[in-house]
């Protein structure tokens, strides 16, 4: 099996790409346009979340607190535009909420980085603490400051307006697919490009990748590893905060207790699945958006005779499958490495085998 994978590496890669293209074409032409649109919309928190995850792992820190940072972003976005008694038309601009969410996520990312890198708190414990803290703090402040239980909603909280992109939205077929979304959706696309450029075209990104892959190499050349990681974690937090603002202001225009619902964790899965590549993470996120949209779509169809609980679990099933693939791939890479090692040096050994048996009787 391993041998087979090794010899036909190229062919396998081509076959996988072809299969991928085929699936994409089938999806594009086989599914109703409304389903595709909601897939793209619902992919947004995954795109931003997985970018947050991969930026941190590229810098050598597994950011397990994305869930918490996302939830904070969702909460802050709503709080900023919340003005009881003010009619919807005169409420604050929801864009302000997005900005505040990004800043609060970045701030939490910065605090997280300082606690981890300067005060040297165990990463896993710290992430657990952040996630639990945000989950409980949002509930607490909802009750104490706003007197609401479970849900924070108000007419003054407007959801983000949709924006038609000029020219593009007039293109047949592609127009409705690429245009007519809210600001944060476009922002997530821009961010995928920005993160790619940052990582692969700038000096700072080069340093992030060097720190993540071989921190000693970076250190020995005088790169300030801690500073690079603090920056990366802060940016990661901002992206997670933006993702959260889409959940509260993009989908619902309200904050619901624990509304991230595991999307932060899924984002980490996506980042792993995509080999921490921004483009790969973007495409994988679209599939997760599709899984989520499909789950809503199928529930609304009377002719589909599947239990609704199963349909609700669609995104989770997709996550589980992705994790299995990630684990298998890591295992296969290890086996492949061992196999190659044995092949390469075994041959050399045969060539130079001198047959000296230590301690053999003469």
């Amino acid at each position, binding site marked *: 099996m391993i041998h087979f994978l090794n010899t036909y590496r190229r062919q396998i890669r081509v076959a996988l790409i072809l299969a991928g293209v085929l699936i994409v074409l089938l999806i594009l032409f086989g599914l109703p346009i409304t389903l595709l649109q909601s897939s793209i919309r619902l992919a947004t928190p995954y795109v931003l979340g997985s970018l947050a995850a991969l930026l941190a792992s590229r810098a050598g820190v597994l950011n397990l607190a994305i869930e918490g940072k996302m939830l904070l972003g969702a909460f802050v976005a709503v709080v900023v535009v919340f003005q009881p008694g003010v009619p919807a038309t005169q409420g604050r601009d929801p864009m302000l909420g997005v900005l505040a969410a990004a800043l609060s996520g970045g701030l939490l990312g910065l605090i997280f980085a300082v606690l981890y890198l300067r005060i040297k708190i165990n990463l896993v414990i710290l992430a657990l603490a952040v996630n639990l803290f945000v989950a409980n703090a949002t509930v607490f402040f909802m009750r104490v400051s706003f007197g609401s239980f479970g849900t924070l909603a108000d007419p003054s909280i407007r959801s983000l307006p949709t924006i038609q992109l000029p020219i593009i939205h007039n293109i047949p077929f592609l127009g409705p697919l690429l245009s007519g979304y809210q600001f944060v959706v476009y922002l997530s696309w821009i961010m995928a490009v920005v993160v790619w450029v940052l990582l692969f075209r700038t000096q700072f990104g080069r340093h992030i990748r060097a720190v993540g*892959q071989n921190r000693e190499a970076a250190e020995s050349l005088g*790169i300030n590893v801690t500073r690079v990681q603090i920056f990366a974690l802060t940016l990661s937090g901002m992206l997670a905060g933006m993702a959260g603002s889409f959940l509260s202001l993009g989908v619902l225009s309200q904050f619901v207790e624990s509304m991230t619902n595991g999307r932060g964790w899924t984002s980490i899965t996506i980042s792993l699945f995509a080999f921490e590549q921004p483009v790969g993470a973007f495409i994988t996120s679209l599939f997760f958006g599709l899984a989520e949209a499909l789950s809503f779509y199928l529930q609304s169809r009377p002719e589909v005779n599947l239990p609704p609980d199963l349909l609700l679990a669609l995104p989770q099933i997709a996550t589980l499958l992705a994790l299995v693939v990630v684990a298998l791939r890591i295992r296969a890479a290890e086996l492949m490495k061992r196999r190659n090692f044995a092949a390469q040096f075994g041959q050399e050994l045969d060539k130079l085998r001198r047959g000296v048996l230590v301690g053999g009787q003469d």
Partner: protein
Amino acid sequence: MPLAVDMRHIRKYFPTSNVLACDDVSFSVNRGEVHALVGENGAGKTTLMNILYGLIAPDEGQIFINEQPAHISHPNDAIRLGIGMVHQHFKLVPSFTIAQNIMLGIEPNRAGFIDAADEAEKVRQLSEDFGLPVDPNARVADISVGMQQRVEILKTLQRNAQILILDEPTAVLTPQEVRELYIVIRKLAADGRTIILITHKLLEVKEVADRVSVMRRGRMVGTHNVADVSIRQMANLMVGREVILRVDKQPAKPGEVVLSAENLLIAGHGGIPAVFGVSLEVRAGEILGIAGVSGNGQTELVEALTGLRPVEGGKIMLLGKDITHASVRDRRRAGMAHVPEDRMVMGLNLKTNLDENVVVTHYHDEPYSERGFLRANPIRKLARQIIDAFQIKSARVGEEIKTLSGGNLQKVVLGRELYGKPRLIIVNQPTRGLDVGSIEFVHKTLIQERDSGAAVLLVSVELDEILALSDRIAVMFAGRIMGVLDATIATEQDIGILMAGGSLEAETPIPEKVQ
């Protein structure tokens, strides 16, 4: 001749490991020479160079670079002073290209955006200037180890290093790559650069260095012109010992083959073989000693034999049974005992009590457990037996062991491992860090086991110990066995030469000097 490096009265003490790594060491290097710094493992040579490169702060002493007093508290200071270091384990980013690795931290950029074309061009120019051809756009993960080392050297040259420290540069190279490196080193020296070569290979010193400084146990024992000293003299300086331990023992009466390993191939750090084609046999009633500077594959060999590391090629037989891929438990059931290198980490669990520590190799057998439940009384009896048999003073049944002395801890390990008459005993550094009394006890115990018919494989970096205990001595170097000596006629010097990668067949072979 002006001095490029002058280190005076350097002292460095590591309190955590209680080691005086540098004891009033003075070391000076002329500008434009190749200066070898030799010594056994733990002699302090790497510590001294890490001090020069700003990775370790000395407790006392002064450093002069180009005859100016220098303060070096960070590698950046060293780089600014024109010092470059090529570490034994390369510090490269595998997914980056050669150019990206060389320019890391000093990337040519416009407003933070990297100018990739300029970067590759700079590296091409650099490699041309020094006659060290590299492909700037090749990924480091795809190039050979020799090429990676060239990248490391270019990295220091790009930062304009005038003083190059090379730490064990030939450890991972093929013979062909070694010759190429020698040519590079001579060329850099001819250009007026100063090269400090950390090594324990004396042949290498003869081939490439102008002068040699020898360190032993944290002290500088002499600096000589290479032309004036023979390999034997250097070996003497390196390993010379004041005290020689002798253990009373009868000649061995070797019996059947207990352990045999054939052509073992074991992977080490970074996909390089740690053990490359080792074959050996240990018979009942004999002690086979494996000597060698640490880090030459002994640890990996022991781990593979005991089932802690996978074997990539070759075969291991224990009493006629193939155990190459057997589990640790199966190996132990077949009669193997293992006294590991580090008793605090691997040998014992210091967080629990004596009983659990001694039963840990037998807990799944009756009478220590029944139907999945541990039984306290038989376990306690076992602990008491071991305390009595090994006279472990101050150890109490059911009590913590973390307060015991090193010698008593090692007795606990030995007591557990030797319980139930193992046929094969693999011991790795059994007396590291012990006092004289405990060393004697461990040695006597091992001889007793041998005399009662066990096969013993002893791995140690202490030559005295190897000479005192072994019946035959195998010397490991760079993952291979360089030769096997009869312990009754082997001398420290012979072993020293083999340990340093030399050969005993020709009398101090001195190859032509590379120019």
